[in-house]
């Protein structure tokens, strides 16, 4: 890995970066620099500020590898994830370019490979500079901090109110040469249904690619003994839980997709935790035949796919009632109460995630007596490991598309990338019974409707006047309300979909109205104190919460202020919320400290007069003499605040059908649970 513009790096590193640093794949530039000992831990102290240059670098990754033709018809270069804007060359010749970290790219490189040594070069454009460059072309679309909304890259990698700003570049998923012949399984969508008699219905849509191209058999180009020249046989088998069913079909010439249907009598239903068991069935898909015995039962398939499914139905009730409109999820026709958490990336450097870490987090979720996790839209479509665990544990998944807290351009380039991304992710996640809700965006409706500076920034005098008589640039709703519903109708109509959350299902209503649809509650933390939860009557609160610092050992490992103080230099680097320490102090009043939430001081005089001195949101009794006491009080407050909110909403049962509080992940890596987790065991807990 080498820097193409080392001049943006600190002077003492420039030569080293220009000459190259060992990189690991999958990986990312910052972690390679850390491994090489060239930078300190990005989470430590105020390193985050000192390392902003990393996001300004154009990084070039070079790999030399041996390759020998094994006789396959196709040799594709496959990149399962490049972050983000990159150009690829193989042996000095251009292969292609990428624009989207959330997609897989595949290029036929038969004619670029050579026997023996090969050189692959992946050159990334600085994500920070590229976002700003595109903004000058496409125009300003409202966002916070960097223009993350110009790129299909994790928004939170540019910093969030809970996380560090460490946008960088890298080959974040595996990359390699895929050699194949005849036919390749491009995607499998095994969709489940349950009939009135309890029978399972499995509809498997299989997308295939022929080595010779669309509608052509691979044998057209390179004859191989035993390969079929016409239709391609496709077989599906379902097993597990005493089931043994299969179906066969044939992909006809000119077609790319085949549908197979299996019926499974007396199927065992998949239920969320607390409502029943979570049985899973194995699905095997086999396509094509090769070898001398092609056409016989002993012949091997050319392509196989294996996955798991669970039989259940999902629906949602949003019909108007006397309280407004609910968002009540039913599984197998039974209304379920969703208890859960929001999932943000578990590490600012996603390539450090692995199955063990997903396992630990899933254990936290299960131990907190939750039955749902919402994958928040500012991060990633997560690894299959997470969804596999959710399937096994009976944890329902609410999956956001990766759009968060911003307006997004709908130009043709972005539109095609978003469509490709959505097609891939809808298909990839379609087997998982845990996935019950797809959500088009996080807070983008309420941002457009309610946040200052959004609508007016989108005014475009050159555009065709809208129903209000003025031109406006498209801001992302085309994806949420048009593109995604069409794709779900085509690819997977079995799940709940809502275009944004929060959203109300009644037109002409604020998207964040508590008694209509879903709601996010943040004014409680920002400006009211946690008793204000009871001013709401939420139908489904899928985001709310209260901040606290991380575990003491985590905090003191990365913050080195002496003496340690809530307002210390390094502490404030990690306190990502605006006025976060003031909000923590105000919230404690009348619960853990004297005073009232709305008290202010002048010159240290509580609720005094201007003549007493400078204004402060803090009052003298907000000060804790011992930082350990402050730390403990913050965590206690978080646990109590979330417990208060959840218990109150539970008392509204039937009106309220779900709560999901945030993961509370602090701006420092740690797997240590907070008191709020233990509190959740109680307030979401099981009796008897």
């Amino acid at each position, binding site marked *: 890995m080498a820097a193409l513009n080392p001049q943006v790096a600190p002077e003492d590193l420039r030569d080293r970066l220009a000459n190259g640093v060992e990189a690991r794949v999958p990986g990312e530039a910052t972690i390679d620099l850390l491994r090489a000992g060239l930078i300190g831990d990005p989470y430590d102290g105020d390193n985050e500020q000192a390392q902003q240059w990393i996001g300004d670098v154009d990084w070039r990754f070079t790999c030399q590898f041996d390759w020998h033709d094994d006789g396959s018809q196709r040799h594709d270069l496959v990149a399962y994830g490049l972050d983000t804007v990159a150009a690829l060359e193989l042996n000095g010749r251009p292969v292609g370019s990428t624009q989207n970290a959330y997609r897989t790219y595949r290029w036929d490189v038969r004619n670029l490979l050579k026997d023996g040594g090969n050189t692959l070069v992946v050159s990334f454009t600085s994500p920070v500079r590229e976002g700003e460059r595109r903004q000058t072309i496409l125009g300003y679309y409202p966002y916070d901090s960097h223009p993350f909304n110009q790129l299909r890259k994790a928004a939170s990698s540019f910093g969030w109110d809970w996380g560090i700003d460490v946008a960088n570049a890298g080959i974040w998923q595996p990359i390699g040469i895929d050699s194949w012949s005849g036919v390749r399984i491009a995607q499998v969508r095994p969709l489940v249904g349950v009939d009135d008699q309890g029978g399972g219905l499995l509809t498997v849509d299989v997308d295939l690619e022929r080595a010779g191209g669309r509608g052509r058999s691979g044998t057209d180009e390179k004859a191989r003994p035993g390969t079929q020249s016409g239709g391609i046989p496709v077989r599906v088998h379902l097993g597990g839980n005493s089931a043994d069913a299969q179906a066969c079909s044939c992909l006809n010439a000119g077609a790319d997709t085949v549908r197979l249907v299996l019926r499974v009598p007396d199927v065992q239903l998949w239920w969320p935790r607390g409502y029943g068991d979570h049985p899973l069935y194995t699905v095997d898909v086999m396509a094509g035949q090769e070898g001398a015995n092609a056409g016989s039962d002993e012949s091997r398939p050319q392509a196989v796919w294996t996955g798991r499914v669970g039989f259940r139905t999902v629906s949602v009730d949003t019909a108007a009632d006397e309280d407004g409109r609910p968002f009540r999820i039913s599984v197998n026709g039974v209304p379920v109460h969703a208890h859960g958490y929001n999932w943000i990336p578990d590490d600012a450097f996603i390539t450090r995630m692995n199955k063990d870490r997903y396992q630990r987090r899933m254990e936290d979720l299960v131990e907190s007596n939750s039955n749902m996790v919402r994958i928040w839209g500012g991060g990633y479509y997560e690894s299959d490991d997470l969804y596999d665990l959710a399937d096994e544990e009976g944890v329902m998944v609410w999956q956001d598309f990766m759009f968060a807290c911003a307006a997004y351009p709908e130009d043709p380039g972005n539109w095609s990338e978003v469509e490709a991304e959505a097609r891939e992710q809808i298909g990839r996640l379609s087997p998982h019974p845990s996935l019950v809700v797809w959500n088009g965006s996080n807070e983008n409706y309420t941002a457009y409707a309610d946040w200052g500076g959004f609508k007016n920034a989108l005014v475009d005098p050159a555009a065709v006047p809208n129903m209000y008589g003025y031109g406006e640039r498209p801001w992302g709703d085309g994806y949420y309300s048009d593109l995604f519903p069409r794709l779900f109708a085509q690819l997977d109509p079995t799940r709940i979909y809502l275009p944004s959350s929060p959203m109300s299902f009644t037109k002409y209503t604020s998207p964040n109205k508590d008694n209509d649809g879903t709601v996010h509650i943040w004014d409680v933390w920002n400006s009211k104190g946690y008793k204000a939860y009871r001013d709401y009557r939420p139908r489904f609160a899928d985001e709310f919460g209260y901040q606290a610092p991380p575990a003491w050992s985590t905090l003191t490992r990365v913050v080195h202020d002496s003496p340690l103080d809530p307002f210390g230099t390094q502490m404030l680097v990690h306190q990502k919320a605006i006025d976060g320490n003031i909000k923590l102090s105000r919230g404690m009043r009348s619960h853990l400290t004297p005073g009232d939430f709305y008290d202010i001081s002048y010159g240290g005089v509580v609720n005094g007069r201007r003549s007493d001195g400078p204004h402060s949101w803090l009052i003298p009794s907000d000060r804790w003499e011992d930082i350990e006491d402050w730390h403990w009080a913050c965590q206690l407050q978080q646990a109590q605040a979330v417990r208060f909110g959840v*218990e*109150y909403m539970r008392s509204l049962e039937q*009106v309220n059908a779900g709560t999901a509080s945030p993961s509370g992940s602090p701006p420092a890596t740690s797997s240590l649970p907070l008191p709020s987790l233990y509190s959740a065991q109680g307030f979401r807990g099981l*009796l008897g």
Partner: protein
Amino acid sequence: MPVTPDQLVLVMVNDTRQAWEGQWRVERHRLDGTVLADQIAQVSIPAGRQAQVVLEASVAAFGAPPRRSSWPVPTGRVLPGSSTIRLRLWTKLSDRGAGCEYRRDDQYGLASQ
């Protein structure tokens, strides 16, 4: 216009797929455990629904701080599969429109399982 005073309400939620029936005993006691008042409620909760019991004044009343109040204790029969009975105490405010509002008085640490 008459104003309905706040009331303390025991709210029970049955998350399960089966009906629950049983008995709750709610006690008001001192920190030393002395029972000052109690109330027994027979409750039936359909699957997935909630039930409410308005606490009698003798149980709901507070003394002078420091104080500890009502501890609800389940004594009923939990039917098979009924494993998620949740219990909290909330103050019922005057009715507003079609619905009621409930406020939990956490200042005195009323909540308990």
